[in-house]
């Protein structure tokens, strides 16, 4: 069987130096703040494997560390400890946090696409929808304007944004901006797509449409998707396996059916029983 496409190995991110107490491997606290030195452990020992073509879920409530984890997977931040092993980059699993700035740029341009919860993190609002997509192709070294316009136009058509290519992104609705982000993330054919709450804040019909588009893309391209969500019905629709994060730690992992129907950790039981 083929190995994982991404492996997160004991990722931690702390704000503060930490002390003997909170660096101890068996350190457990009520919150993610060390009671002795006040160091905040935004993530602590997070490990998981994502297989090629799989949709992998990351669940947890606000503040659990989900977006921090996405930032680390996207190289927007470095972890304090641990490694990410990224298979398509080099033969076998190689820790990408050893990569040079140039190698990181390559990975971010070609191998990994990211869709943030807040479109402003990815999109320039004063630039047209097409321009936002083309910009990413420029970053990847493409220089043929006509060709890029064609590709960007096709991509936006796929995202049901035909005819809106030359509109300023700032004039588009939230649902449309999310789809521009998806088009931009996919335009260089990445192996991995990171989706941070891609449908949060959208009304139900726009959510259904966006999820359907993501499902189509996934089926057509067979890429691996890491999906951050706090919505169990989105998780059930999209993902096969997931981890549950609480205060920066993995409290439970399993198949989505197991997590939803037979949650074992008190926190997972609380989350599942709170679903509408």
């Amino acid at each position: 069987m083929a190995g994982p496409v991404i492996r997160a190995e004991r990722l931690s991110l702390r704000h503060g130096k930490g002390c003997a107490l909170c660096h101890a491997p068996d350190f457990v606290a009520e919150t993610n703040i060390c009671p002795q030195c006040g160091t905040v452990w935004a993530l602590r020992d997070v490990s998981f494997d994502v297989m090629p073509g799989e949709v992998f879920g990351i669940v947890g409530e606000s503040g659990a560390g989900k977006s921090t984890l996405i930032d680390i997977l996207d190289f927007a931040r470095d972890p304090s400890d641990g490694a990410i092993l990224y298979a398509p980059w080099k033969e076998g699993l190689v820790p990408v946090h050893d990569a040079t700035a140039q190698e990181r740029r390559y990975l971010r341009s070609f191998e990994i696409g990211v869709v943030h919860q807040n479109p402003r993190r990815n999109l320039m609002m004063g630039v047209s929808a097409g321009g936002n997509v083309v910009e990413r192709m420029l970053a990847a070294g493409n220089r043929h304007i006509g060709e890029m316009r064609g590709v960007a136009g096709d991509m936006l058509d796929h995202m049901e944004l035909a005819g809106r290519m030359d509109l300023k992104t700032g004039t588009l609705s939230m649902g449309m901006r999310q789809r521009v982000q998806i088009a931009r993330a996919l335009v260089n054919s990445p192996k991995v797509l990171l989706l941070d709450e891609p449908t949060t804040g959208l009304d139900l019909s726009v959510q259904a449409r966006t999820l359907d588009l993501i499902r189509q893309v996934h089926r057509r391209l067979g890429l691996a998707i890491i999906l951050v969500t706090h919505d169990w019905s989105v998780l059930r629709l999209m993902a096969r396996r997931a981890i549950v994060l609480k205060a920066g730690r993995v409290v439970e992992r399993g198949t989505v059916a197991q997590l939803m129907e037979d949650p074992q950790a008190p926190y997972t039981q609380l989350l599942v029983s709170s679903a509408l």
Partner: protein
Amino acid sequence: MTDPILSAQGLNKTFVMHLLGGRKIPALRDVSFDLAEGEFIALVGRTGAGKSTLLKCLVQIYRPDSGRVQYRDRNGAQQSLTEMGDHALLDLTERDFGYVSQALSVAPRVGALDLMLERAVGLEPEAARARARGIFADLALSPALEDVYPVTFSGGEKQRLNLALTLMGAPRVLFLDEPTAALDPDTRTRIVDVLLARKRAGISGIGIFHDMEAVAQLADRVLEVDKGGIVAERANHACTF
């Protein structure tokens, strides 16, 4: 004699309700049985006896506290579902198992036939469409429903679509949670006929039935479940083909 296709050995399951002060609800006690290849087992018993829990422990939607579930795969190799990694487990169960729950859970705003086509594995589009239409008709689902979103289906239609989705794949073992509940006698007969055809094709199955006519027609063996354990077992001699 060949090994059984599925074997449950000493399954136990207790639910711990952490939100209710850690209250424990015992659900399965020391359940063991074998399912032979090509055999159909009917689980009968009162509501709340543990029949659905048993099905879910077999397919690993519930993780049993102790005990083993062994499965003999297509190559004749024994696989221990209870000790497998979750990725390998999904690969195996998605390919070989057809679990039909009592609730339909599907993508919104996708028509019924398109949902079925998503489940087609290794078929040309035309062949997949023909197969989906055939299953649809076999289960007495009207062709007018083919492009309708299942959210608008009646209870009985949803139930049959759930079975139809499972039959689109090529499961070796069916796990059926009351597939004939809430259906009128004619439609029920259609479902039983479809299941009988699968059985004749060599598919094994274990299902929960409250309808004794279906049990008499389908099952080789009947296991009675009560208070989380198997309390009686009988061969079903009425079963003839």
